[in-house]
């Protein structure tokens, strides 16, 4: 640890966002960067805890004390190496991770956690811009071929890990471009797509084969037969719907459809299909999560007249939440850069029905609900009967995802599912089908990018063990 007292003398300093009235006119990344000196000072605030809760809280187990010390000392290359020992893509997580580490940082106790996420992004950028990252193809190939289905963060991490170990990896992607939700889900203003391309070209140079626009679907059996192992990383594609009156009206779309459409704008491959746009509309986003927030930011940039975001749950406390004390992830009010850009946020509203004219939406009826804790400490909802009408001509449903798309690939493969209809996988990420493994949202339900990467790494380790004959797999798991 470079400076044991830094945390006392140096305050947390975030790079902050570009000014609202500038950033809403483009899709460039909203977050700014600190100069290298400030960055070092921020890294110096890390106390190298005897029990680093940040490291524990990180799904990847990033060893923050070790690489932040390197940042403090200006050893960027070493920082990058330490970071990539646990995290394949620090340039992604450094931008979009909700930073569970920072919430668990011991300095969070005094509300000044280390800027771990920004530090991480800085390490990755420094390493890329200074040319420290060069393709490092494996010296020896194992002769084993692996197919990864899906090119989201889980699939990519799995591919990267397996390639490092000398296996030959092919990544199949149904969409026209590689990246999964990284590319089509997350708006550019949070993650510029060039960042993804930069990583992909590196991976390609190291020998990974990408097959975009190649839906596998029913061909899965052939692939299983042709490859030594297969990893399913197709995500959790089935969105949660809101089956109330008027759902079939025009102008109601799933959030992902909306975000995908926007993201496709930047791709030369973008198709000619009808585009959902918020331009000139009063937008209502239903669902108060991160995806909803992305819809807000995107709507603003597209030129919406107004944006409202509603949520069925009550408004969380603003700073502290006794229910989720440190080192847990705090359930508190989260105001994103998108929220700052202009939107009305409301809570405890249940959507009763969609009201339209000529088959087109023009209002939504909502009802205020009340939440109370029952005897077991669980929140229960009661309707108050107090309703109101919200005028809107564009409704975006950001209610999360329920499980993977079961038709096609999964159905054909006939892998065992768990109670929530996710693909059931074991300690080695193996599924009920021999040679077939699973990683990411397809096994755990929709979750964070960082969890997807972790899951991809774990599956890679399982596959490697399987290929080397080290792992004694139990009988195929059955549900």
């Amino acid at each position, binding site marked *: 640890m470079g400076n044991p007292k830094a945390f006392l003398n140096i305050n947390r300093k975030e790079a902050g966002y570009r000014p609202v009235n500038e950033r809403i006119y483009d899709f460039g990344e909203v977050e700014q960067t600190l100069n290298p000196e400030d960055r070092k000072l921020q890294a110096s605030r890390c106390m*190298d*805890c005897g*029990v680093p*809760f940040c490291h524990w809280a990180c799904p990847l187990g990033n*060893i923050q004390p070790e690489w932040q010390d390197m940042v403090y000392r200006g050893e960027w290359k070493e920082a990058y190496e*330490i970071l990539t020992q646990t995290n394949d893509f620090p340039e992604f997580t450094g931008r979009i991770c909700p930073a569970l580490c920072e919430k668990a940082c*011991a300095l969070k106790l005094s509300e000044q956690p280390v800027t771990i996420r920004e530090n991480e992004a800085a390490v990755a950028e420094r390493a890329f811009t200074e040319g420290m990252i060069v393709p490092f193809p494996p*010296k020896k190939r194992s002769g084993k071929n692996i197919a990864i289905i899906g090119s989201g963060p889980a699939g990519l991490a799995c591919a990267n890990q397996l390639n490092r*170990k000398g296996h030959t990896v092919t990544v199949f992607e149904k969409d026209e471009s590689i990246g999964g939700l990284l590319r089509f889900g997350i708006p550019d203003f949070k993650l510029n797509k060039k960042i993804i391309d930069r990583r992909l070209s590196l991976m390609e140079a190291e020998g990974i084969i990408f097959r975009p626009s190649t839906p596998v679907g029913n061909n899965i059996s052939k692939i299983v037969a042709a490859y030594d192992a297969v990893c399913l990383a197709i995500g959790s594609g089935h969105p949660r719907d809101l089956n109330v009156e008027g759902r079939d009206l025009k102008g109601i779309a799933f959030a992902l459809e909306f975000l995908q459409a926007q993201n496709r704008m930047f791709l030369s491959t973008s198709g000619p299909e009808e585009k959902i746009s918020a331009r000139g509309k009063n937008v209502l986003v239903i669902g108060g999560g991160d995806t909803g927030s992305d819809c807000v930011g995107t709507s603003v940039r597209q030129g919406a007249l107004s944006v409202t975001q509603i949520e069925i749950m009550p408004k969380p406390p603003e700073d502290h939440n006794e229910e989720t004390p440190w080192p847990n992830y705090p359930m508190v009010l989260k105001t994103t850069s998108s929220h700052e850009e202009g939107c009305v946020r409301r809570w405890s509203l249940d959507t009763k029905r969609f009201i339209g004219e000529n088959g087109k939406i023009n209002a939504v009826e909502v009802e205020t609900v009340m939440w109370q804790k029952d005897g077991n400490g669980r929140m229960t909802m009661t309707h108050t009967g107090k309703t109101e009408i919200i005028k809107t001509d564009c409704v975006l449903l950001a209610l999360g995802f329920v499980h993977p798309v079961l038709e096609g690939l999964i159905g054909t493969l006939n892998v065992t599912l768990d109670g929530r209809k996710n693909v059931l996988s074991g300690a080695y990420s193996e599924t009920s089908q021999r040679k077939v493994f699973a990683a990411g949202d397809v096994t755990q339900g929709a979750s964070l990018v960082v969890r997807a990467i972790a899951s991809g790494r774990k599956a890679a380790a399982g596959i490697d063990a399987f290929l080397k004959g080290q792992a004694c797999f139990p009988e195929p798991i059955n549900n």
Partner: protein
Amino acid sequence: MNMQSVYPKEQGLYIPEFEHDACGVGLLVNISGEKSHEIVEKGLQVLENMVHRGAEGADNKTGDGAGIMIQIPHEFILLQGIPVPEKGRYGTGLIFLPKNNQEQKWCMETIINVLKEHDLNLLAVRDVPVKSEILGDTAREAEPDIKQIFVTGDSSGEDLEKRLYICRKKIEKSVLNSDLRVKRSCYIVSLSTQKIVYKGLLSSLQLREYFPDLTNPYLTSGLSLVHSRFSTNTFPTWDLAQPYRLLGHNGEINTIRGNRTWMEARESLLNPKALGCTINDISPVIQPEMSDSASLDNVLEFFVMSGISLPHALSIMVPESWNDKNPLSSELKAFYEYHSILMEPWDGPATLLFSDGRFAGGMLDRNGLRPARYLITTNNMLVMASEAGVLQFEPSEIKEKGKLHPGKMLIIDTQTGVLYRDEELKETLAQEAPYKEWLDKNRINLEKISSGRTVKNSPKDYSSLLKCFGYTKEDIEKIIIPMCVDGKEPISSMGNDTPLAVLSDKPQRLFSYFRQQFAQVTNPPIDSIREELVMSLTGYIGAMDKNLLEPSADHCKMLKLKSPILTNQAFDILCNLRYKGFQTTTLPMLFKAEEGARGLEKALEELCLKAEKAVDDDYNYIVLSDRGVDETMAPVPSLLAVSAVHHYLISKRKRLQIALIVETAEARENMHYALLLGYGASAINPYLAFGVLDDLVKTKKIYLDFHTAEKNYIKSIDKGLLKIMSKMGISTLRSYRGAKIFEAIGVARSVTDSYFGGTVSKIEGVDLEDIAKETIEAHRKSFEPDQSTQSLENTGQYSYRRNGERHAWNPETISALQLATRMGSYKKFKEFTRLVDEKAEPIFLRDFMKHCNNPIDISLVEPVEAITRRFVTGAMSFGSISKEAHETIAMAMNHLGGKSNTGEGGEDPERYKIHEDGSSARSAIKQVSSGRFGVTAEYLINADELQIKVAQGAKPGEGGQLPGFKVDHVIAKTRHSIPGISLISPPPHHDIYSIEDLAQLIFDLKNINPTARISVKLVSESGVGTIAAGVAKAKADAIIISGAEGGTGASPSSSIKHAGLPTELGLAETQQTLVMNNLRGQVVLQSDGQLKTGKDIITMAIMGAEEFGFATSALIVMGCVMMRKCHLNTCPVGVATQDETLRKRFTGKQEYLINFFTFLAQEVREHLAEMGFTCLDDIIGHTERLTYKPAGANPKAQKIDISKLLFRPDNTGSNALRKTTGQQHQIDAVLDRELVEISGKAIESCKPVQADYTISNTNRSTGAMLSGVIAAKYGNAGLPDNTIRFNFKGSAGQSFGAFLAKGVTFRLEGDCNDYMGKGLSGGRIIVTPPAGVIYAPNENIIAGNTILYGATSGEIYINGRVGERFCVRNSGATAIVEGAGDHCCEYMTGGRTVVLGTVGRNFAAGMSGGIAYVWNPTGDFDYFCNMEMVELSLVEEASDIKDLKTLISRHFQYTQSPLAKRILNNFSEQVEKFIKVMPIEYKKVLHEEKAEALKQKIAQVERDY
């Protein structure tokens, strides 16, 4: 039960090897050799006056042993009707024989036969009359038949003496090889033409009565040597009473294991020509299964019999310190250096009184920690004893009063009546041979050889090697970098909460399976920094192949090393040295990886054979090397190889003929080097560690050149080795080497027996198979072609890492505990305990235990309050933790009826007041530690328990240091020190060098606060049970067994990891030993060490604990998140910091702690209900309630065997398993009762009182109880000056005027023993020789050692010289004395000391505050002063001159000192001969104070304008 005179066999965790003893000794000699019965009678009186130095067993009647050695009483023998020839023509001695007729017959026949072989006859056998009826039960059951035999032959004098010796050794050997049921039941007490020993399992008072011979007026002698024993055990062993054949020993030989082994190895090089026999006739020289003192006596006797003079032999075995800091002639240094090549010192505290019948005398070891006072009378009598005042004399009868000084001896030839003093004796010895010339011509100094060869520091395959030898990122960053940058070992904080090596699923180096042992109570650790003058790492390596008994220049053909660590350069020179025929051969420490354990075993066998062949081929050096590792060959663990070869060569008697040098990549940290040396390595070349340094330098990770990095690294190893040695009280590497001061934990007995010379291993564990597997695993990794894992792994040994070593305190457990106690949710708390109790893989030994169930209804179980009373919190000082944290704990514990502990740092008297709501922030337990910070009468009286901290779990055997920058005003105030001045806690308590000293401190504390419970805190290690037994016999009310897992605010990392044992082992051993000795009923047993849950408490209770300590868990409840940064003062949660802004972050509340302890108690109740018991008392010590529970999947862990932990001694049926009675403190009749009564008025209404008393050395701790009464009423303010005045005449016992309160003046005419004015709290003590003395007071010793230890205020005036360590840790008292021994003013932090006379070595070591003035007319003071922390100047400032003059005037006023008068008469001239000793830090603080005052003045002036 059949009680024979033996220790119990090794059983459970008890191992007889660990028995200790300590004692009182005395010697009376008529210098002119006249014989009288008076000498015998007075000898017995001396013994009787030291009865408090011996001890009694649980029956309070059986003594630990007492005896007397006298010259053969020829006339008395004739009067018994035994037809002996004239004096010197026959030999006689007492024999202990078995009671069994047949066995006795066999013994007598054996004796007769052996005598016959040597042309000797058994002239007569006399039944020695004894009074068996006075014995205690235990002693009586084991009483032998005692006979006196008389032996004649056609020889006399020396020749006969030698023959008797050879016969005795042969008889001993026959007995050893016999079928006697109990081998030691036949024992020859002595057999000599000169002297005879009477001894037995008696108390000092019983000796006279038991042997009526001794009171017969015709029994005469010109000398008597007496000894009373204080043993840690109460097992009936008659033969271990002292004196032995030549000596009586008060002390302990710490290096005994090594000394015995080396002696065995040495036998092949001893050809006792002078004895007229071969070594085989008398082998083994050391009689097995005896005490350390007996072994010392055996070897001494062997040397003397082989023709080496008594002083010569003693100087070889127990040499004084002769490094640069000691004023000795170069010839004498050469004498010592020459002999240091032949034999390692027998190191450890020792007062040795000895006699061969003609010569008699005494000596002290190099440290001189045991007292030895003497006086010589005008009628030529010398009395030398552990204490002064053991015999009364008229003042006019005394010619000289003195004491032995460290390393010095004094001998009287009773035949010629000449008294030889040390200097004379030693110079004669030094002249006996041209030692200096021999050394100069033959001994090579490696440092002085240079070579033109270039040596590479970067090994081939560097990164593979790192992996192969298991280097981790932490090894490099947390160990090696601090070592090579700072030149010292890194510091860490909090405890070790990782699994034992055997429970870890990470591959371990073999080193990790060993733990350092350390000294506690029975012998003191040493301060290797402040008392460097006794320490040495110097060694000589080479081959010895000549008869060591013949002085010869050839013995000096050796290589001298200043440090055992060889740089690559030095190692290269050594390997290629051809000088004087030196030859080196290299033996590879490698085995075929694919052959696994079998391959390893084979490699070891071959290595041993090759080593033996190297000896036979006349090589001087064997290099055991693990260079050459490749894909097929894996390295043999270096420790295994070294130890195997070392022990193999010893068994072949060939070890001394060769040096074992280890060239290894494996060793990197201090513990590794200590282990290699402790198991026999002569020197070590850690080439990969140097490779790491080279890499760090080249990659610019450190900004040093290689040479400096290497120098720092070696320096830090040297320091570390000194520290590890000094922990055990060992001063020289020569005696540490091969001494095996370690124990194995989790290693199979098969391995320790085969390769580690029977090192203790109690729970079984890894065998050769596992060791090979772990080695091969690392080896395989290092040669994997995988490119992606270039950098080293961080295995999380120190900090938590998710995939690293498991930690008991991890994010889950920490946050669960905090949440539960904060929310007050028992449900959450159960989640926490589930995480702890049901963890998947075991971390602690307790994880292998479960209790048996037989449920009852929980309502029947005793209430929560009955259980929380048994809870205490750990001793965390105010200073290590913040005020807020400290007080929160105290409030919570007081609320719960438990006890909090002050720790070592005093307590603000404000906290003694009870708040209006009845709550209180007063800590119930006041700790008394080696630094004695803030230990005043008031502090001691405000306690329910006084705890003597002998050792601390995280750093047993070490002291601490609070750097000056952390000592702010508040801390300085509570510690009675000065802000800004560093505070050093010495490793030992300077008033506990032995078990009888501990008894004395307990007595002191009991006197000052009779209502407080006295407890003694020990740390778990093998042998702690026997120490605890000694502590129980020293009358402690409670014993704490701390686990090595315990925490710390700052400690060297290696101590946290590698010293001490888990609490389970120590607790179980203590319980078993106390029960075996039937001492358990007298004491409360408490345990701590990472206790967290109700199950932990239940487990500890069943293993014997009645009370339970919590420290880390309490801190965590208050917000600690285990940053492990306590030592940096940067605790971000305000717990372990003094920083004001950080303290504001403290969010702990007493309610959280109350929740925690209530939950724990509730859980205990649940467990009790499950087990079917209504109260905790019912399960204490009932180990049958615990069973083994297999834990975890780790195959190594499956090999753990905990049966010894659960063992119950046979006699548990009748003996108490928990505290049932109490101690008899014997304070009802102390002199203070009278003093208190007479002072009633004075104390009540401050009316002056005065009285006169006579006093003797049996009046101990005089003044303590009185001061307690005063402090209870008036606090530290005490009474007005001189309110109470007592005049004493005689020899005061130990601790005279201890904690003496303000307003009390003690005036003593006579002399005084050790520890006078201990903890002086404002009182005044005046000591003068009695009127009528004929000697000059300033040339004679009037008071003993360690005066004013930890004094906080008051005055002391001494008209005479005193012993060692005057004013040690004085923080405020004023003292004037007329000469002092070694280490004067050590660790002083305040007050003033004036010495009107010479001082010994090492003056002002560690002195950080206060001022000393030394009258130094000879102008040589600077040699004796340790200049590390002080500055010397003349007394020139007017204020100083005035100060000094006032002090001396007062000295004269109180004592009428003639010397003071002489100085005052001519003060202006004499003042120039004074030297002022001023600590640098103190000077700086005073300077700053002055500057501050000036600044304020200026500000004042400016304001006025």
